[in-house]
């Protein structure tokens, strides 16, 4: 069983080698035509190659060596862009290969009836269909995706998650989904198939990782339109230069018309090849960063939407607070000693194996030195928690000790002929108001007091929410707690809003309301009852540990099942957009310097005073043109790492981000090529290539 591939480094030699080969394969015009800007660049490269052939045969419009140099660098421009895309795909491909190796030909123990005792036969996994049932036992690899209908087992899902600790899968509840390709470690399961062959989670994951199913996202399409429009503008600008140049030569009576080779070079320099060449690499790298974060997105569209999210719905338990509440204080009622309350509460919790129960025992020992007692020796009868009574406790020597929520204990003492003391009720209210959960302890009809169970807010979550706020994202805590408790925890954790006493219906309604108001909503979920809300949310991160229904409804699956991951997902989404925007700005700003290199070079013979525009003091017109073309090609390579890693995101608010990125990529884009082109020109001069 291969374990999940370790994260591959960006510039791994094996990936680079493979990418270089792919870069040449991608020269196929059928591939290039999908990217209009690079297609124009490729046509230009081919055209200038034709001009070179013409020059070699003796009728060249310019020296053959010059045309050769221009053609070669135009081809490099296209190749470098292909290389960027291939590099971005490379890491995904390496991972997909490893995943594919895990999908050997599997066999399923097909069952005629979905129960363990049923008759069955051995069938290849590829002929199992939705609704079929199969049996898996310890050591078996689960052949297809499915839902457990019978049994409980520990499963090794490391092939998916990279997490070596086994997980429990059982029928019913929120842990019933199993994934094809994972392995049963102990016990057995009867599973009903939920995905057709080729549609399984592993298949989808491989396709996603490979980028095979990558469709262009809405913003990417809009940007491509802008780039195409710019390309048309430059095409017109450059093409009309030919008649302009002829006319000017005629009018001035000196110089010679601009060679077509130079116009072709100028065109490729001006059209936004930098961003167009890196555009698909940026998108692929975004998906890849998701995968590195152990999140599988069903589409690039979902990744992009994550960047736009306005509201995050976060479950309280597990996301904002640690899963377990802890007892922090005993509040005895009137006439009851705190120690007695502690002792009774401890008795009521001895049988309670939940973390809350254990924390009561711990607190009683810490505060009053009350030691654990052996219940068998005491001869006590355990009363477990049920959905009906909503209390737990024990019967001992005729005493009937119970602990539970206020309303449950209230009902209990009244049934016993007692009454609920007002002072305890007000203490319980106060505890609830302070964000803790009051647990009332009763001994028969007598109410002894309240145990304060406190939610423990995760460390650092408050500053995380502050960051989100400065990004313009509102956080809403979703909890089943009453409004008082919810408000107190919301205040402590620093969320902007909360939804208390949440049910699947109220959750769905909240999402709809927010969306009506024009907001994009993200949420996490794992249970089947989360599925409607997940389906409604714009960005829905399902936990891998969750049910099949939740995973189907979401548009992302977190393999680590960590709800806090949503914040990371938003950042990755924003990064993809920022990288595109910044490189577009850079690419367009670059053109100014290229004009200053090429325009004086091509017109100085016609109008000698135009030499004054040669502010970079480039050696010769030919070296000016070549330097600009070389810079234009090399800048693509130089920016590949940035495109793959993404422009760093800082949670500082839109205005500050814009100022920073405009300065770095706008102003930087204006200045950098002046230095770069001059440097290349100097180098060419030094090597006597001019």
């Amino acid at each position, binding site marked *: 069983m291969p374990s999940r591939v370790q994260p591959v480094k960006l510039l791994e030699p094996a990936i680079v080698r493979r990418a270089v080969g792919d870069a040449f394969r991608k020269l196929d015009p059928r591939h290039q035509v999908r990217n209009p800007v690079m297609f124009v660049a490729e046509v230009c490269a081919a055209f200038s190659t034709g001009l070179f052939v013409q020059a070699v045969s003796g009728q060249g419009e310019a020296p053959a060596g010059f045309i050769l140099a221009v053609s070669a660098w135009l081809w490099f421009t296209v190749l470098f862009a292909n290389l960027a895309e291939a590099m971005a795909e490379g890491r995904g491909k390496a991972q997909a290969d490893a995943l594919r190796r895990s999908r050997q030909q599997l066999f399923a123990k097909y069952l005629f009836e979905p129960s363990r005792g049923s008759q069955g036969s051995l069938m290849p996994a590829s002929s199992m269909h939705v609704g079929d049932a199969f049996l898996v036992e310890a050591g078996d690899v689960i052949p297809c995706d499915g839902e457990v209908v019978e049994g409980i087992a520990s499963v090794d899902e490391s092939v998916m998650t990279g997490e070596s600790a086994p997980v429990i899968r059982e029928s019913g509840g929120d842990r019933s989904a199993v994934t094809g390709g994972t392995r049963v470690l102990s016990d057995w399961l009867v599973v009903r198939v939920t995905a057709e062959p080729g549609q399984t989670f592993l298949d989808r994951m491989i396709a996603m990782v490979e980028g095979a199913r990558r469709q262009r996202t*809405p*913003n990417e399409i*809009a*940007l491509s*339109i*802008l780039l195409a*429009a710019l390309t*048309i*503008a*430059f095409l*017109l*600008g450059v093409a*009309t230069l030919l*008649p*302009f140049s*002829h*006319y*000017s030569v005629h*009018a001035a009576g000196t110089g010679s018309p601009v060679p077509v080779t130079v116009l072709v070079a100028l065109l490729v320099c001006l059209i936004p090849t930098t961003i167009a060449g890196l555009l698909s690499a940026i998108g692929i790298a975004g998906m890849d960063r998701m995968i590195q974060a152990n999140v599988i997105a069903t589409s690039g569209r979902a990744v*992009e939407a994550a*960047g*736009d999210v*306005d509201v995050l719905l976060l479950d309280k338990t597990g996301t904002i607070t640690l899963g377990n509440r802890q007892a922090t204080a005993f509040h005895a009622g009137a006439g009851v000693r705190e120690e007695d309350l502690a002792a009774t509460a401890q008795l009521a919790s001895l049988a309670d194996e939940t973390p809350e129960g254990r924390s009561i025992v711990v607190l009683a020992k810490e505060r009053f030195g009350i030691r654990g007692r052996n219940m068998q020796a005491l001869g006590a009868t355990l009363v477990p928690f049920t959905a009906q009574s909503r209390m737990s406790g024990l019967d001992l020597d005729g005493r009937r000790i119970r602990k539970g929520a206020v309303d449950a204990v209230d009902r209990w003492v009244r049934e016993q002929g007692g009454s609920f003391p007002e002072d305890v009720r007000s203490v319980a209210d106060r505890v609830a108001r302070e964000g803790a959960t009051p647990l009332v302890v009763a001994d028969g009809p007598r109410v002894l007091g309240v145990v304060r169970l406190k939610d423990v807010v995760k460390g650092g979550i408050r500053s995380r929410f502050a960051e989100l*706020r*400065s*990004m*313009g*994202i*509102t956080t809403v805590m979703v909890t089943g707690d009453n409004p008082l408790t919810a408000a107190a925890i919301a205040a402590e954790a620093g969320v902007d809003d909360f939804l208390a006493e949440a049910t699947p219906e109220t959750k769905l309604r909240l999402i709809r309301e927010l969306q009506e*108001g*024009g907001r994009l909503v993200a949420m996490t979920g794992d249970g089947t009852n989360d599925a409607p809300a997940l389906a409604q949310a714009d960005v829905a991160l399902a936990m891998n540990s969750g049910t099949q229904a939740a995973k189907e409804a979401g548009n992302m699956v977190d393999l680590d099942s960590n709800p806090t991951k949503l914040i990371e997902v938003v950042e990755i989404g*924003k*990064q993809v*957009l*920022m990288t*595109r*925007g*910044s490189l*577009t*700005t850079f690419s367009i*700003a670059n053109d*100014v310097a290229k*004009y200053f290199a090429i*325009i004086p070079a091509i*017109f100085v013979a*016609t*109008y*000698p*005073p*135009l030499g*004054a*525009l040669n502010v970079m003091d480039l050696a010769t017109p030919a070296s000016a043109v070549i330097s600009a073309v070389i810079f234009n090609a090399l800048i693509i390579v130089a920016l590949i790492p940035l495109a793959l890693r993404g422009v760093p*995101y800082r949670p500082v608010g*839109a*205005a500050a*981000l*814009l100022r920073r*990125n*405009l300065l770095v*990529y706008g102003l930087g884009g204006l200045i950098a090529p002046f230095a770069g082109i001059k440097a290349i020109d100097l180098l060419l001069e030094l090597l006597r290539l001019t």
Partner: protein
Amino acid sequence: MTAHGTAYLVVYTITLLALARPLGVYIARVYEGRPCGLARVFGPAERLLYRLAGVDPSAEMTWRRYAAVVLAFNFAGFVALYALQRLQCALPGNPSHLPAVGPALSFNTAISFVTNTNWQNYSGETAMSHLTQTLGLTVQNFLSAATGMAVLVALIRGFARRTAATIGNFWADTVRGTLYVLLPLSLLVALALVSQGVVQTYSAPKRITLVQPLEIEPPRTDASGGTIHDTRGNPVTARVTVTGQTLAVGPVASQVAIKQLGTNGGGFFSVNSAHPFENPTPLSGFLEMIAILLIPAALCLTFGEMVGDRRQGWPLLAAMVVIFIGFAVVALTCEQRGNPLLRQLAADPAATLDHAGGNMEGKEVRFGPVASALWATATTAASNGSVNAMHDSLTPLGGLVPMVLIQFGEVIFGGVGSGLYGMLSFVIVAVFIAGLMVGRTPEYLGKKIQSFEMKMASLVILAPPACVLLGTAVAVATTAGRSGVLNPGAHGFSEILYAFSSAANNNGSAFAGLSGNTPFYNLGLGIAMVVGRFWTMVPILAIAGSLVAKRQTPLSAGTLPTHTPLFVVLLIGTVLLVAALTFLPALALGPIAEQLQMLAAAH
């Protein structure tokens, strides 16, 4: 730039901004149908017009319907104006007995006035009858301006309304714009101009006797109008004594008022506002110059008012004002500095107390280089195109200023309505790139900017430069185009480039020195005007239709703020960069080459 130049520019800008604010608020009231104070005066006329036309002003239109009506209405205007010119000899209101205008020129002129360009390949006083001027040209001056404003208002509704399907009623928008905005303002301006001595009459040209007879030697012409040459090829001349002069007059003040206010620019006389009957005094000059930019400036604030956030109007106006002042400073400096080559002839162009100095070629003495250069800047920043000096005679860089302002796509103030909607397409592009840079799907005023808006905004921004470049290319590559050029070298190229820039961006001013009244230019420039006007208008309405259907995303800290100085800088950068990247090579072969040649020769 002298202190006089600086003071003139400052006073002009402050006056403009002071008037723009109240007018902007007023215009918003007009288009929102709120009480604007003039309902008592024009209300009955408005209702009568709707009744006569059988129009329900409250019937809302989808963008497709709105666009169809705009096109049909403007086509009807074109046909009417064409017919009027062709038939003017048979119609009344023709005291000078002018013949019918030729078909090619009628075609060009009709398009020119319908598209708010007012490119004039004719001399008004010798080609157009009073009736044509009044019922044809002046009427189109109003309607083309009202159309521009209507389309802008439809676009504003696209931003302001949420999840709606319609963008207003074109008939109501046009009628209201004409009756409540253009008419009262024109009335005020016309009266003010008459007070300065601008003519307003329907009488025939006046024949006057010269105080001092004049002897001239014009070349003799044969029956067909061609010059007669002697055996050595020199023209045969004859001595003539001139004792009288014909002074053309007509309904001038009314047409000048709307030609300035409606960014039309088509003068009553051939020399436009350089003519003493159109623009007699420095004060009338200042007034007319204010009228050029008044409505386009006010509309920025109307925008803020109508989208419900006044802060959104100012940055657009600020971007325009900053670019305007920058270019005005260049023009004023160049024109005040004059031509350094003249210094070699011992002519000192420096300004002194008793003479304005600078480059006085092609300028009126009563305006001088300052008022002339500022007018040239204002008239090309707006798509007005009226002139008080000859742009052909500006210094090379001084001439580059109007040319580039036009090539920005007439968005620095621009035409009434059309300037702002052009600017808003630049806003869409700027917001798109900036929005990506802050990591969100770009949005403006809460409306998401997606591929459809991008496609349409690209069309709006691309169409005019495409016409300019292709038109100029065809002109310089064909004999028909080249034969119109009267000047050699880079300046001849500038003249062609300017002509197509002016037509495609619906400005209408000209670098003289190009014989425009030829079939080639009448047709070519006519096509450029149509494409430049309607190829932008229809996509703008499509954007309005797409935006109006969207819901509005609420503001948050993650939203790109569009009312900050940073946004103004971004917008200015976008406008400058797009124009520079498109036109820099062409400009290098025209005014830039000329300027550098002049400087090289001076050293």
